[in-house]
C-alpha cells in the first residue's frame, strides 16, 4: 500500500515565510507519526538547493522539487498548475500552507481547483487516529476558536498562522528522498504578468500598529533606566510605551502613554517592565498575543496576565536581555 503523505508547501521568499514553512514541517512530523505517514515538502522555483537542504535538515522525509529558470519569480498561477498536477498524481492526505500573504491567496485557489475544503489561519492542528485533521482556527472576529474538519474530501488543507508551531532545530545529518521533477511540457503562459517587483522598505511603526511593544512603569526606577527601553525596542523593531505615572514623572512623553487615557495597542509581543498592572494601563493592552512581564513582585497583576513572568529587578534584567540579544541577533 502506498505510504500516506502530509505535504508542506515550501514558501521561502523572505525570512518570515521561510520560518513558517519550517514550523509547518515540524508540526507535520508530529502529525505524520500519529498516522504513519511521511512528511513531504514541495518546493517550486529556481536555484532551490538551499531550500532542499534546509527542509531536509529541519525534518522533511521527502522533497518534491521543480527547479526551472521559468519559475524564478513567484507566480501564483504557475504554482497552482504545478501543485494541482502533483496532488492529483500523488494523492496526499494533508496539505499545510503558511498563512502568509502569498499562502492566503494561493491556498484558497488550490483548494478550489482540488474541490476540497480549507481552513484559514489555523492556530492549532491535531489529528484523529483515522487521519482526520482537526484544524483550530479563529472565528467570529478572533474571540472564539472553531474546530474545523474536512470529512469527505481529500486532501485536507489548512493555512497556518506563522509562529504557531516551533520548528525542529537544524540538523544537517538528516537525510531525505529528493525527487527533482521536470517542468511539465506545455506549461501555459500565466494570465497574470509580473511587470516588476522589488523588496519594499520596512513599514513605519506607530504605537497602535506596532507588532512589538516595550512598555515600562515606575518599576524602572528612574528616567535613565527607562530610556534604555529604547534600545530594546530598537533591537526588536518595536516601540516604547509608558504607564501614567511614568508620563507624569516626565520619563516619557504623553505620546507614549498606553492605557485608558492613552493609546490602545495590540502587539504580537509585549514586554512589560516594572508595571504593576493597574487598569488605567492594562485597559489599553487589547489582546497582546504574548506577554512577558518583568517585576520584583510576582503577585503583581501584570505578572499574572503574562505568558512569561520574570521575577527580577526590571532595570537589571533589561540590561542583561539587551546584552544577550546583541550577541544573538543577526540582521
Amino acid at each position: 500500500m502506498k505510504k500516506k503523505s502530509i505535504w508542506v508547501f515550501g514558501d521561502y521568499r523572505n525570512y518570515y515565510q521561510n520560518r513558517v514553512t519550517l514550523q509547518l514541517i515540524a508540526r507535520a512530523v508530529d502529525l505524520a507519526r500519529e498516522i504513519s505517514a511521511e512528511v513531504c515538502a514541495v518546493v517550486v522555483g529556481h536555484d532551490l538547493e538551499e531550500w532542499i537542504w534546509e527542509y531536509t535538515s529541519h525534518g522533511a522525509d521527502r522533497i518534491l522539487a521543480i527547479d526551472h529558470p521559468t519559475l524564478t519569480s513567484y507566480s501564483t498561477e504557475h504554482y497552482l498548475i504545478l501543485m494541482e498536477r502533483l496532488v492529483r498524481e500523488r494523492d496526499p492526505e494533508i496539505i499545510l500552507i503558511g498563512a502568509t500573504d502569498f499562502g492566503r491567496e494561493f491556498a484558497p485557489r488550490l483548494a478550489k481547483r482540488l474541490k476540497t475544503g480549507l481552513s484559514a489561519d489555523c492556530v492549532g492542528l491535531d489529528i484523529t487516529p483515522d487521519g482526520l485533521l482537526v484544524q483550530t482556527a479563529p472565528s467570529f472576529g478572533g474571540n472564539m476558536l472553531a474546530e474545523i474538519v474536512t470529512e469527505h474530501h481529500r486532501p485536507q488543507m489548512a493555512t497556518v498562522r506563522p509562529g504557531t508551531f516551533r520548528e525542529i532545530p537544524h540538523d544537517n545529518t538528516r537525510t531525505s528522498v529528493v525527487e527533482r521533477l521536470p517542468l511539465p511540457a506545455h506549461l501555459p503562459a500565466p494570465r497574470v504578468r509580473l511587470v516588476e517587483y522589488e523588496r519594499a522598505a520596512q513599514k513605519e511603526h506607530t504605537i497602535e500598529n506596532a507588532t512589538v511593544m516595550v512598555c515600562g512603569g515606575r518599576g524602572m526606577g528612574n528616567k535613565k533606566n527607562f530610556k534604555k527601553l529604547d534600545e530594546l525596542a530598537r533591537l526588536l523593531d518595536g516601540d516604547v510605551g509608558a504607564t501614567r505615572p511614568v508620563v507624569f514623572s516626565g520619563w516619557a512623553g504623553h505620546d507614549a502613554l498606553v492605557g485608558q487615557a492613552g493609546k490602545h495597542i495590540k502587539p504580537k509581543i509585549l514586554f512589560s517592565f516594572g508595571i504593576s498592572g493597574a487598569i488605567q494601563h492594562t485597559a489599553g493592552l487589547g489582546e497582546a498575543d504574548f506577554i512577558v512581564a518583568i517585576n520584583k513582585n510576582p503577585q503583581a497583576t501584570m505578572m499574572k496576565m503574562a505568558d512569561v513572568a520574570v521575577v527580577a529587578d526590571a532595570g537589571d534584567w533589561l540590561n542583561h536581555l539587551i546584552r544577550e540579544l546583541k550577541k544573538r541577533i543577526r540582521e
Partner: protein
Amino acid sequence: MQLNPSMKHKLIRASTRSFAEAELAPIAAEIDQQRIFPRDVIEKMRELNYFGLQTPKAYGGAELDSASSAIVVEELSRVCAAVGLCVTVHNGVAVYPFLRFASARQKKIYLPKLASGSAIGAFSLTEANAGSDAGSVETTAVRQGSNYILNGTKIFVTNGGICDVALIFALTSSPEHKLQSSVFIVESKYPGFLRGEREDLCGMRANPVSSLFFEDCPVPEENLLGKLGDGMKIGLATLDNGRLGVAAQALGIAQGAMETAVKYARERQQFKKPIASLQTIQNYIADMATEIMAARLLLYRACDLKDAGMPFGCEASMAKLYCSSVASRVSSLAVQIHGGYGYSKEYDVERYFRDARVTEIYEGTSEIQRMVIARAILSQSIL
C-alpha cells in the same frame, strides 16, 4: 405602532457613528480643552449634507425626516457635543425658519448656501435683559429708506464666531407706532455686524459661542423674515423645533457618558473584582440605561408628530425637559462611577458632565419647558 427603527434609520445612525468615531473621537477632548472649532472636520461634514439635514433636495439638502435628523445630532453629540451643537443650531433654528417662513426669493438666495454649509447659520434672540422673557428684546430695527438699521447686542450666540448668516430678533414699530418684534436675515458681511469675544463657557467649549454687536447695521428690507411683527410667532415655532435638536443632543451626551462609564466599570477592579459586579454600580447602570431608553422614545414620538404635520410643541418641550435632565443625571453618575479619575480632565467623562449641564438651560430652560407643558395640559378641556 412602529417603535423599532427602520433599516434607513439604522443605516443613518451607523453612518454618522462611523464618521464621528473616525473624525471626531480622536480630537474631541483636545478641541474642548483648547477651545478649537474643528474647521477641517466641518469641511468634510459639508459634503455629507450635515448642514442640509432636512432641507429639500431642490435646495441641495438631504431631505431627511425629523427622526433621522435627531439620530444624526444624537450620534455626533455622543462623541462631541460641541460639534453636535453646531449642527443642530444650524439645521434646527437657522435653516428651519427659512423652510417655514421665508419667501420664495429668500429661499432661493439662502437655502442652497445654508444646505451646503458654505454659509453657517445662527439664531439670535437672547440679550442681556432678554432670556426666558423673549418679549424684552432691546435690539432695534428702524426703517430708513429701503433698509432697516439694526442697533443692539446679542449674547450667547451659538456659532456666533463663525456664522455667515444670522437670524436676528429686533424691535420694530408697526404702522400704528406699536412696538413689536420682527426677524431679520443678517449677513455677517454687512457693515456694522461685529462679533464679540468668544464666551469662556463651562462646556461646549469647541463651539464659538460669542456675542454679536450691531452698530447702525443696514439690513435690506427684503431680508425681513415673514411679516413685520412676526417675531414672536417665528420665535416660538423655531424654538419648538430647536428643542427637538437639543433633546437629541442631550440624549447623545447621556448615551456617550453611559457607555464610557459601563466600559470603565467592567475594567476597574476594586475589592479584587470589577466594580461592575457591585450591586450599587449595577443599580446606577440600570437607572442610566432605563432613563436613556425612555428619553429616546419620548424624543422620537415628538419627531413623529412633527413629520405627520401635527402640533408637536408640547411633546418637544417634554422631550427637551426629560432628555436634558437625563443627560445631567447620567453624566453625573458616570463621573461618580469613575471615582477620582472621573474628576480628571484626562478622562472623557468630565467633558460629558460639563456639556450636559447647559442642555437644561439653553433653548428654553427646564423651568420654561415645564411652563409650556403645563399650559398645554391645563388648556385641554378633557385630559
